[in-house]
């Protein structure tokens, strides 16, 4: 098992990619706490399913709140006394053309996707610096590079994450903390359901591997980045998109 005994905190862990990461981390021997916002039922199911094979617990928190983030981190520290891996995965979409985008749709995406990364990462700085080790994995998106119509808010939040990832990697490298981002392409989750329903055929044509990704594809990358195999990788945004962004013809 590649993450034996490691303590991980995953935000947005009750659904989609986050859920896949929680499952993969537990399978690899990590003790996992995950944060969910509203999906209590889903969170309870995950805890009950995974508890047979490992240690896992769920924390309800609004990732937009710095105070809630600190509380969640404190809860993990109280229980397991360290945090080795933070996965900033929580994210939402509120697509719409900028010309008519409500301020609330802009702010809620930036707050949930980007400000949450600040909230949780700052909260784990102290324990990770004391430990002289840590892995921070931020969930970006190929949308940060692609220029999709209707995603100014989402792309801005993910582009922000890319910059954050590189700057923080430079800041904390000498404390043996790595900071990387994963930029998924089209992954089969609730978040992409509407787009998939409207244009799955077209989307697949744009992907070199001619299939949509699964949460497991992202989870395996997260496991790799969290494991000792990736100890010399930092400040990178790794595209896991089946070749969607190759851009060739």
């Amino acid at each position, binding site marked *: 098992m590649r993450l034996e005994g490691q303590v991980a905190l995953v935000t947005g862990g009750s659904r989609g990619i986050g859920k896949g990461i929680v499952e993969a981390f537990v399978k690899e021997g990590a003790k996992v706490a995950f944060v969910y916002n509203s999906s209590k039922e889903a969170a309870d199911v995950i805890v009950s399913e995974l508890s047979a094979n490992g240690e896992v617990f769920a924390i309800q928190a609004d990732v937009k709140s710095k105070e809630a983030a600190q509380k969640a981190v404190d809860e993990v520290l109280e229980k397991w006394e360290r945090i080795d891996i933070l996965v900033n995965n929580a994210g939402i979409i509120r697509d719409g053309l900028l010309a008519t985008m409500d301020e609330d749709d802009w702010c809620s995406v930036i707050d949930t996707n980007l400000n949450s990364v600040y909230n949780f990462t700052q909260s784990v700085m102290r324990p990770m*610096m*004391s430990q002289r080790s840590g892995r921070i994995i931020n969930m970006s998106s190929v949308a940060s590079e692609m220029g999709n119509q209707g995603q100014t808010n989402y792309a801005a939040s993910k582009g922000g994450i890319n910059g954050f990832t590189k700057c923080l990697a430079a*800041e904390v490298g000498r*404390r043996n903390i790595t900071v990387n981002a994963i930029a998924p392409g089209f992954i089969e989750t609730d978040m992409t359901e509407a787009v998939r329903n409207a244009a799955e055929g077209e989307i697949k044509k744009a992907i070199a591997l001619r299939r949509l990704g699964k949460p497991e594809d992202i989870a395996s990358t997260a496991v790799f980045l969290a494991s000792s195999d990736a100890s010399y990788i930092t400040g990178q945004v790794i595209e896991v998109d089946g070749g969607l962004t190759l851009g060739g013809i």
Partner: protein
Amino acid sequence: MPTQDEIFKVVQETLEDALGVDDDEVTMDATLQGDLGAESIDFLDILFRLEKGFDIKIPRGELFPENLARADSSFVQDGKVTESGIAQLREKMPHADVDKLAENPAVANIADLFTVRMMVNFLNHKLNG
């Protein structure tokens, strides 16, 4: 209440751990950046360790004020800290040897205000009043 020697010992151990330096390098006159090689992230680490070591809270900017050498003509002119700048530094860093900086107020010398002695004096004041 810890004595100055006891405080120095804790500071010495803190700096050994945080900066990976030897105890004989951590003298009272050693500068954190020039002599001990501290970088900006180290100051945060040192702060965390001191808070833990002494079981105190040190408000941000109190021990290690940030952005001292700002590009402001009232603070710095022609690469030198102005008299007004020196006065501001005395206020912000009452435990540092600002007199020494005043003798040669080159901006680059501001970093030398951060010495082991400054830390010990700060902590002595903080812990013993």
